[in-house]
């Protein structure tokens, strides 16, 4: 049956669009609020900037129930193994947003205890710069993520599991 589907790529792309439409409009963030950026993340979820119009108001406390990992704040060397374990606990498909200069590249802290960027331990999809990024900045980054999701091909991952990201 999969061969038949592959002979009609049109069907797969329609299915792709449907799946990605559902995914990008109902991302459930796992708010890993580490430092100052967490406050701006919460402000984005509050009444004025209202992240729920993007379908993301359900911030899950458990990584098992979330599909978007927003790393908001400084990742220290002590916290790094925990961030990695939390990311591994999330089920596929999952996306990671590095919010704020500290998560992007260590921020203003080139010190002995700060990990210089969370992409050293987990793969990042969208980098949002700012210290902290304003809620508008975070929303812009999330919209870029939505665009990225819209351009992905979930059916290919289902049909060809080896192509799935496993790092």
């Amino acid at each position, binding site marked *: 049956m999969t061969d038949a589907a592959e002979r009609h790529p049109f069907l797969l792309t329609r299915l792709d669009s449907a799946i990605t439409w559902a995914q990008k409009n109902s991302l459930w963030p796992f*708010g*890993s*609020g*580490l*430092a*100052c950026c*967490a*406050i*701006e993340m*919460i*402000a984005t979820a*509050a*009444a*004025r900037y209202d992240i729920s119009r993007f379908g993301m108001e359900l*911030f899950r*406390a458990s990584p098992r129930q979330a599909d978007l990992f927003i790393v908001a*704040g*400084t990742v*220290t060397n*002590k*916290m790094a193994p*925990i961030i990695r374990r*939390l990311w591994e606990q999330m089920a596929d498909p999952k996306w990671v947003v590095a919010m704020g200069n500290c998560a992007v590249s260590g921020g*203003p*802290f*080139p*010190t*002995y*205890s*700060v990990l210089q960027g969370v992409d050293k331990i987990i793969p990042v999809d969208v980098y949002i710069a700012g*210290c*902290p990024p*304003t809620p508008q900045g975070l929303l812009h980054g999330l919209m870029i993520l939505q665009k990225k999701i819209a351009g992905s091909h979930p059916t290919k991952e289902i049909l060809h599991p080896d192509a799935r990201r496993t790092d």
Partner: protein
Amino acid sequence: MAFQEIELNMGPQHPSTHGVLRLKLTVDNEVVRAVEPVLGYLHRGMEKLWESLTYPQIVPLTDRLDYLAAVSNNLGYVLAVEKLMGLEVPKRARYIRVILAELQRLASHLAWVGFMANDIGAMTVLLYSFEDREDILDVFETYCGGRLTVHGIRIGGVPFDMDAGVAGMIRRVLDGLPKRIADIENLLDDNRIWLHRTRGVGVISAADAMDYGLTGPPLRATGVPWDIRKEIPYSSYEDFSFDVPVLAGGDVYDRYLVRMREMRQSAQIIRQALDGLPEGEFQAKVPRILKIPPGEVFHTIEAPKGELGFYVRSNGTDKPERVKMKSPSFINLQCLERMCKGNLFSDVVGILGSLDIVLGEIDK
């Protein structure tokens, strides 16, 4: 059947620990026997970093300490440096600093009440208080461009003058404030569930509080009327008349009430400062390359979280020899175990919320 004590781990990733705090709880059935906080998950090495930066370069980094009340940290550090320099700051700048600091206290307390109520289960309050806080952040954004990490106070004064536009915005915020505080109080003050979860919970006596070095609203809720703004006034606080709310219960409910009443007092101070804002310079003359002759100074202020102090030691160069920050949250957190012992496991979240800690300040 014999019950045994269980060790539970709370955090470092947890929605109610106000940051990356790890608590090792030992519980016997539902009663807490021991609490051991494990810190350092946000230790960024700030004090080491400050030794390699110039005095003005350190000011924006202090924003990241207590990130809910950035201006207070700026003020604490800048006042210590100015004391070390022996610099006299013009009166207009001092009044503007008071306005900014008290606005920041309002913003910090509004965020605190939202978080604490959310932790205990009253989620509505979070959305209301954050909306009110947004109006105050608008004022900061108009004044100096920053919402959260504001950098609104510089060595020698303030970065910008306070013009009629910003003053008007502040007055509008103050006009709407009593109703907003009343809204939150109506939801919580006499709420049966709130009272059940906060009255008589997490009690600490005044003697214990002084021994543990508790400062700020948790101390004033045990009956000790210690407020640095009245004790050792700084930045012209002696010009303003305001009360210091003090209650004697020492429990979570009294800590909540003290902060709510402090908000009203802050509004009063801001109004007095705006009405009495003197003419003059908003910045003193500070050399572009600031070198301070050797000396040391320890200065404290009343930040929203408690007594915030900075020890600054200079060595004649443009970089400090040592800067140490006395963190109120770090010291207040020490008595968490004392407050939680004997209470129910589900009260830990409420007690932690009432202490109003910020991990950026604890871990530096």
